[in-house]
């Protein structure tokens, strides 16, 4: 059984540290906000200029002037600050964000990431993703291990337009937690009920399987 989106978010959340500033991308990364341990304070940054993202508003609190980077209505927590896009990206590009979590179409053994465009098919734009991968020191990619048609997303070389080069070191998929070192994927943890052979079969780029591979605790 592959991990659910919530379980993938929970695995990423194990990396959260008390007092850290975190930027979450759209999709599975957004779910990480629901997994912050009770004894921990984490401040979420939304790149449209909100540092200290709160929960969705109640019907009465809805305010068109208060949205997140996914363009959805949000609230701000006590102690938050709101800045311009230039200031918001100074936080990102200046390396001030402690943890960045984002989705991807493909990642390769060089740490390259493709996440913003499928030529001739899907035109979305990179939004803030290129800034985030270029500026962050600690990045987690969350994505399914393979596409719906069974194509590996963990490649020897990305085939889609790149979002960034040599910037990804940690990946949580629905099957495994992997790190990238010396142009190889290293299998660090596997999902319960997922065999190592299954992971090997769905990983196109070179994969190192250490003697001990932990079962993910999610």
């Amino acid at each position, binding site marked *: 059984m592959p991990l659910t989106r919530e379980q993938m978010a929970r695995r990423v959340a194990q990396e959260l540290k008390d007092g850290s500033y975190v930027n979450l991308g759209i999709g599975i990364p957004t779910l990480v906000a629901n997994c912050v341990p009770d004894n921990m304070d984490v401040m979420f940054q939304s790149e449209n200029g909100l540092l200290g993202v709160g929960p969705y508003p109640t019907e009465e609190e809805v305010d068109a*002037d208060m949205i997140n980077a996914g363009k959805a209505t949000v609230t701000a927590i006590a102690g938050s600050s709101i800045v311009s896009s*230039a200031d918001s990206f100074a936080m990102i590009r200046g390396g001030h964000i402690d943890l960045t979590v984002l989705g991807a179409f493909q990642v390769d053994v060089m740490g390259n990431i493709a996440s913003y465009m499928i030529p001739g098919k899907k035109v979305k734009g990179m939004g803030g993703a290129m800034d985030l991968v270029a500026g962050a020191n600690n990045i987690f990619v969350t994505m399914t291990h393979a596409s719906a048609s069974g194509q590996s997303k963990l490649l020897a070389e990305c085939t889609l337009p790149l979002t960034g080069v040599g910037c990804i070191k940690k990946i949580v998929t629905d099957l495994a937690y992997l790190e990238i070192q010396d142009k190889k994927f290293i299998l660090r943890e596997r999902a319960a009920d997922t065999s190592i052979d299954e992971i090997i079969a769905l990983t196109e780029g070179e994969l190192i399987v250490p003697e001990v591979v932990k079962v993910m605790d999610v």
Partner: protein
Amino acid sequence: MAGFDKVVPSLNEAMAGIENGMTIIAGGFGLCGIPENLIAEIQRVGTHSLTVVSNNCGVDDFGLGLLLKNQQIKKIIASYVGENRTFEQQMIAGTIDVELTPQGTLAEKMRAGGAGIPAFFTATGYGTAVGEGKEIREYNGKNYILEEAITGDFAIVKAWKGDRYGNLVYRHTAQNFNPMAATAGRITVAEVEEIVEPGELDPTQIHTPGIYVDRLIQGNAEKRIEQRLTRTA
């Protein structure tokens, strides 16, 4: 006093001087903090072959999407077009020229344009399609690409309050690109929800000083919400 009074009486006068082929920089993120009345005025006037610089391009029937639908835009410089089908169709069909620009780079290009900085080096986009053909320089072992500043014939922004001198205050996340956009227009037009007298805004709280603003107009904003998500209390 009149020398600094930026208030204009009509949308027509607010956008006077706009011509075909001009570059328009617009503030806003999604539909949040967009100068919706100034955009509607450009639609009404029908100016075409415009280059539009904005983070997004509205939705199919609101904001800059109106100009897209009306085929008034020749080129757009934006970071994200995900929610706009007209945009996606025109881009794939090749009827519109699109320069996808990373969001932080876009903000910095406007900021630099307004601050008289012609270009800057950034790591964002190095090794990607964005960096193709751009000068590369290495600092402390990391590669950076040279990005050029952007200025516009017009900048159109949306603020919450503005005084007659053009000092502006933005509300919540409707600030976004507006402060940078305001600095980068040869003519900057601000649409505000409320016009107040000079002295009513606290000087320490002003986001955009009036020096950047040429024209000010009060506009009734619909403030459409793109994604209304709520929780039960």
